[in-house]
């Protein structure tokens, strides 16, 4: 029972980790929290669905198409909508990202109406049975895909020149601009990357869950909870927080009450922010007077 719950928690949590990581990348890169991120996950899933079901494409090119489209979308949102209001308050950014999410949701709803859509299964991995613990095929695909993605992501970030550029801008925008990094283009690319990562999460979700235009909100809140738990703005914290949140949900659901699965994320947010606002890996912010 315990191991089974932990395994399904990790499978679920790996998606939260991916969502939280992409939110964190955008937050660290541009100091903006993207409240429309859940809708980008949803859009990624629907692009994959449209390519597979309507255009009859195989899954791999469909996934690539979703990734490319969402990258362009993220980039365009930053360049066209966020950059012009950069001088304004954070409230404006929050509202703008929500507005983008609404347009995405409305577009999908206009196209598909209010139905709930199942997608044909693509991953046919047979479940693995170890003792009395069952690893479902979906769990294996989720964890495998997310782990691969994370390894590539962190290798690029810490082992390549591109990663050094990213780290430079994360540390100081002004300093990065002074050594010749094009910060504007970097911000666009960061949002593009955020959109692309949202698409990865959406593409993974598409074949295993029912698709509907409002599915994003759940992932947004859980992404926030994972970020908060791991420490707001910490990349590694986002990943750890996501996995821990997934496990917490399953354990609460398994041992206490299934009613609690829905609110585990809210309880985590409130508990962490009240007790230890910096989360597990966050650094204390220094206020300069």
């Amino acid at each position: 029972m315990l191991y089974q719950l932990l395994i399904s928690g990790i499978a679920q949590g790996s998606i939260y980790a991916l969502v939280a990581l992409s939110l964190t990348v955008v937050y660290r890169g541009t100091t903006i929290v993207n409240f429309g991120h859940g809708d980008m996950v949803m859009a990624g899933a629907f692009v994959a669905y449209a390519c597979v079901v309507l255009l009859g494409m195989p899954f791999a090119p469909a996934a690539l198409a979703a990734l490319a489209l969402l990258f362009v979308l993220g980039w365009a949102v930053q360049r066209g909508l966020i950059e012009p209001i950069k001088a304004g308050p954070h409230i404006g950014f929050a509202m703008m990202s929500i507005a983008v999410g609404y347009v995405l949701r409305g577009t999908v709803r206009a196209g598909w109406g209010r139905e709930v859509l199942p997608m044909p299964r693509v991953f046919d991995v047979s479940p693995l049975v170890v003792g009395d613990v069952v690893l479902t095929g979906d769990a294996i695909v989720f964890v495998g895909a997310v782990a691969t993605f994370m390894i590539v992501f962190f290798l690029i970030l810490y082992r390549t020149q591109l990663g050094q550029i990213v780290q430079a801008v994360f540390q100081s925008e002004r300093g990065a601009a002074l050594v010749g990094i094009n910060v504007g283009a970097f911000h666009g690319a960061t949002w593009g990357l955020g959109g692309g990562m949202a698409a990865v999460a959406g593409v993974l979700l598409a074949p295993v869950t029912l698709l509907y235009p409002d599915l994003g909100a759940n992932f947004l809140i859980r992404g926030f909870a994972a970020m908060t738990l791991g420490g707001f703005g910490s990349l590694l914290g986002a990943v750890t927080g996501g996995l821990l949140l997934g496990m917490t949900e399953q354990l609460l659901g398994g041992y206490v009450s299934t009613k609690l699965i829905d609110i585990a994320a809210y309880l985590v947010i409130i508990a962490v922010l009240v007790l230890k606002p910096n989360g597990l890996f966050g650094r204390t912010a220094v206020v300069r007077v």
Partner: protein
Amino acid sequence: MRGKADARSLAARLGAGPWPVYCTLILALLVPLSTNQYTQFIVNLILVYVVVAVGFNIVIGNLGQLAFTSTTCFGIGAYTTAILMVHVSLPFWVALPGGAIMGAIAGVLASATALRGIRVYYLAIITLALGELMRWVYIHADTLTRGTDGLAVPVANFFGFPFDSEIKRYYLFLAIAVAVVKSTSNLLRSRIGRAIAAIRDNELATASLGIATGQYIIAAFVWSGFVVGIAGGMFALLIGRVAPESFDLTELIFHFAMVMVGGLGSLAGSVLGAITLTALPEFFRSLPGLEEMLFGVLVAVVLLFRPKGLASFFAAFLPPFRQRFCRPDS
């Protein structure tokens, strides 16, 4: 030449006086002459949202905190009013203030997080979580709230005079809305209002002037919660049924957008935002999705081209109104 100069000064003098407010009020009294039952319902809904926007604007506009407390206070106000009327059989004029007081208490709780240094996105996220948690409570506290079925609210009755038609409710709501707008306007011009604005502009500098910033932050949250709680009670009376789905994230985003589209920190903006966003979707009900798309586009366009909201749009066309529609620094 002389005539033109006189005209301008006349316009300036009139614009500075209270007559635009009086004209609006007289027109508002005449509204039921031109409505049918459905449009009157929408007008009543607009009044509810005027009160919501005025209340929410105090925290996110005047105080400048990213605190998404409005659906929490709105839901608590609505449920308290409904529960007091159904389970305790209190008349609405006791239940409604009861809802407002519970809304104010929710505001105090939210301000406690802000006072602990939980700010900007942290504050946004914790208040979002609180709101969603409350919705879960509404669903699972079935004995009090009847869960997802919703709680039916009886007709409001004032010593044998029932508010059983949309037009009767309209005059009741108009009176409440006018009282809320006037008292908020007075509050914002008082020492408290000036302290709140000072905290928004520079909290540290305000504190260094010897102003107890903590107290005024609490005051802003309390008044905001109280006003939004009243709106919740009005909503319960208007719809006649309080259900958890009325207080979800979509509702919160709607409240947020009213304030942003109307104009942050502007009373007239709150009124304009509520009218625009409540009335607009009524024209696009037929196509699924179109409503959401238009909502998103409208918000984005306002943010890009009128970052100070529709209030500033009016001010640009009618210079004498500038003072009335915009806060002094805009």
